């Protein structure tokens, strides 16, 4: 991928966040270029979700800058960051259970500026339902969906705002092999649309299939960075994962 074309979508430098004495994210630096899928790897507890929470404004950083399309968003309220073009999914899938699929997706686009005309919004919702494989389910309550369908719906909601940057937190976790193949194809198709993605993932086959580059975290620090194949064969990375999740899971 073209790493040096224009402003990076995301530039992070010196990012730090501690919980009491535990430094969950420690002096983290990385950039994500336009159109790139960047893998964010590391054993459980290494700080991946915390990093996403800092980027999306759920948590305030103790130090560091986060630039989205060049603008520093560190410490901004999450709704402002969302309006600047950032969308995400959650490690524990979050859909709006009391609403139907259509309303769930509408929530993702109704509050973006400028507001879409109603007819255009409805059209986009139809397209998204179709795209994630939920066509025909639009009036179905989210609470009635199966696990993978909830994941699909959550993704559709995130995509509804046409984000410049999409953060996926273990979106492929817990899927069976055939669902996994569908999920990988879906994310690959997003790249074809030019959406830039930060992918937190333990499923190595997916990382290999999707990520242009990866960084690996351990205990809050970045311990490796580079092209996916190189990073996954790095001795330090293999060591960090021992006792955690096997690299070739």
């Amino acid at each position, binding site marked *: 991928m073209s790493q040096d074309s224009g402003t990076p979508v995301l530039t992070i430098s010196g990012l730090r966040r501690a919980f009491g004495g535990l430094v969950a994210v420690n002096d983290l630096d990385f950039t994500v270029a336009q159109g790139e899928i960047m893998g964010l790897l590391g054993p459980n507890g290494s700080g991946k979700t915390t990093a996403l929470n800092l980027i999306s404004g759920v948590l305030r950083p103790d130090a560091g800058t986060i630039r989205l399309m060049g603008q520093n968003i560190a410490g901004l309220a999450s*709704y402002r960051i*969302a309006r600047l073009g950032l969308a995400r999914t959650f490690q524990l899938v979050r859909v709006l259970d*009391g609403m139907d699929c259509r309303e769930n997706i509408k929530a993702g686009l109704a509050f973006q500026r400028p507001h879409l005309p109603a007819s255009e919004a409805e059209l986009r919702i139809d397209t998204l339902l179709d795209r994630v494989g939920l066509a025909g389910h639009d009036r179905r309550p989210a609470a009635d969906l199966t696990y993978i369908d909830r994941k699909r719906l959550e993704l559709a909601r995130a995509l509804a705002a046409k984000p410049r940057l999409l953060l996926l937190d273990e979106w492929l976790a817990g899927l069976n092999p055939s669902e996994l193949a569908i999920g990988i194809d879906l994310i690959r198709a997003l790249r074809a649309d030019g959406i830039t993605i930060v992918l937190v993932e333990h499923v190595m086959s997916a990382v290999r299939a999707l990520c242009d580059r990866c960084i690996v975290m351990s205990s809050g620090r970045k311990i490796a960075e580079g092209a996916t194949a190189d990073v996954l064969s790095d001795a330090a990375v293999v060591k960090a994962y021992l006792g955690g999740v096997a690299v070739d899971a």
Partner: protein
Amino acid sequence: MSARIAGFGATALAALALLALVPRLGNAYYLALAISLLQYTVLATAWGMFSGPTRYVSLATTAFFGVGAYTVAVLGEILPWPLVLLTAAALGAIVAGIVGLSTLRLSGVYFVIFTFGLTELIRQLVVWFEVNKSRVLGRYVFVNITQADIYWQLLVLTAAVFLLGWLIARSRLGFALRVIGEDETVAKHCGINTTFAKVALFTISATVMTLVGAIMAPRWTYIEPSIAFNSMISFQVLIMALLGGAHRLWGPVLGAVPLTLLFELLSARFPNTFTIILGCIFLLIVYMLPRGVAGLFEKLSTTAGGKPTQRVAA
């Protein structure tokens, strides 16, 4: 769709015209009862407008009601009546805005406790002001407002509240509040300014409550802080809205009407044990009807039952 709305609007107008005739019955007892019914209908509906979608349980009803009543006690003789109401509404909105901005970041139980404390705080402030500054403990309310006037004003306010609630439910703000009620974190990530949305609705709801207090004030000839800030109102309104079902605009009225009648009966028959009875009714409602009467209707009308998710259960 719009034909349905027109039909519904016509029915509502006809009902309104009929209800406007109640003072013509010439029966003071029925008029007093009708005033109570409208008072609690408006209060419970206004309560549900904010607490239904956001699921924040507020015990501040009394605080706003009292602010309205006291505004009348202080300004009733000085300003023309419409200006008194306007001032009361403005004061209620300002207090609500301040309270909302400082508390709506709190979650669940802290918010309940804060709103309860708020009532006491405002009451003590009023007492302090009256004793130290104006050197009176109570005030006479001398305004030229009859019981029928009170009733008609409440009726207009009732209509306005339902219209407002209906408009909000169809608006982007209404949708934002539903998303917030479902999952506030998701709401923020959808680009919703959650603080603004909550404060806006809290303020609208509180302004209505303040107006009820102001309209009701002439019913007493003498007002003192313990009358205007009677915290029983907060609890009664809460119970009514929960019984009716706060997740629907028309829910709270289903609780307000039967419970106003019941409370009227009980407080006359058992003045001493009334509070205990109130508590028991509250427990029964939360336990047996977590989605209120409105939820019960919905359940009955959907034969192929999608399991209703549990909502406001305090």
